[in-house]
């Protein structure tokens, strides 16, 4: 039987591990966001074709699916995370360049950026202060994500602007849910790998930013 001291020691160890994962995740997230901003800025001035930007997203997704699971527990994983976030930042070039050339472009991009930051800080701040368990959202969020991807596929051929707008709003809701879910997993010890945690939160922020940009771009355009 466990003595009270060993239970207390184990609990303290678990808290220390959780704090370490949280600290490493936020540090790596900050660095990858900075790196992503640099590649996005480079891409904005290089203005790659939409095909090249989509190709960068394809490679980033391939790295997430095939390379990251094999490298996430080693130092190589750090390089893979930077490659993924760099490529995703680069893929933003054409869309950012498009908005920057519109009348309210700079304001729209900066508002989307600030809005994404506020959403992230508010949601992660809520989980960090309340320590609430959001694991119940898992099934709902993944179902929502599959429905959104299916609807996006359909809208590629239907081209309904209202559906496109509704999908952007739905992406923000689902990705906000994923921020709650991922942060709660880290806080409660369900996620012990900071590389996986960083990529998950980065993808949520990336999708919130692009969707917010889309919504503000539509409403900001007179």
């Amino acid at each position, binding site marked *: 039987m466990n003595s009270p001291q060993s239970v207390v020691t184990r609990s303290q160890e678990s808290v220390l591990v959780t704090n370490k994962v949280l600290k490493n995740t936020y540090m790596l997230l900050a660095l990858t966001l900075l790196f992503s901003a640099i590649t996005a800025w480079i891409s904005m001035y290089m203005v790659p074709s*939409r*095909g090249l930007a*989509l190709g960068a*997203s*394809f490679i980033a*997704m391939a790295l997430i*699916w095939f390379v990251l699971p094999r490298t996430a527990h080693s130092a190589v994983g750090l390089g893979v995370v930077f490659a993924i976030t760099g490529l995703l930042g680069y893929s933003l070039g054409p869309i950012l360049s498009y908005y920057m050339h519109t009348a*309210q472009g700079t*304001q*729209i991009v900066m*508002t989307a950026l600030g*809005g994404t930051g*506020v*959403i992230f800080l*508010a*949601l992660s701040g*809520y989980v960090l202060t309340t320590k*609430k368990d*959001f*694991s*119940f*959202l*898992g*099934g*709902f*969020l*993944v*179902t929502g*994500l*599959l429905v959104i*991807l*299916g609807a*996006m*596929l359909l809208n*590629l*051929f239907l081209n309904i602007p209202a559906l496109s707008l509704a999908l952007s*709003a739905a992406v*923000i*809701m689902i990705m*906000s*849910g994923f921020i*709650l879910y991922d942060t709660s997993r880290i806080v409660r010890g369900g996620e012990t790998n900071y590389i996986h945690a960083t990529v998950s939160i980065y993808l949520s922020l990336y999708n919130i930013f692009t969707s*917010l940009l889309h*919504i*503000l771009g539509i*409403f*900001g355009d007179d």
Partner: protein
Amino acid sequence: MDGSFDWFKLAQALFLIMMILFIWPSAKRMWQDSPKGSGKDWMIYVGLMSGIIFFILLLISMIRT
């Protein structure tokens, strides 16, 4: 409609199909493993999402003024 645009659309469709296929196994695992949330849990989620919606509406009104 020019041909290159069709190829781009096709590539986008392929990208989305690949995402659905790759997410599917994790989705099945999450459906099985996710605990059920109580009414209070869902109310907290709805409350937070309402806050996000209100915030987005605020951003839209800022852009339009």
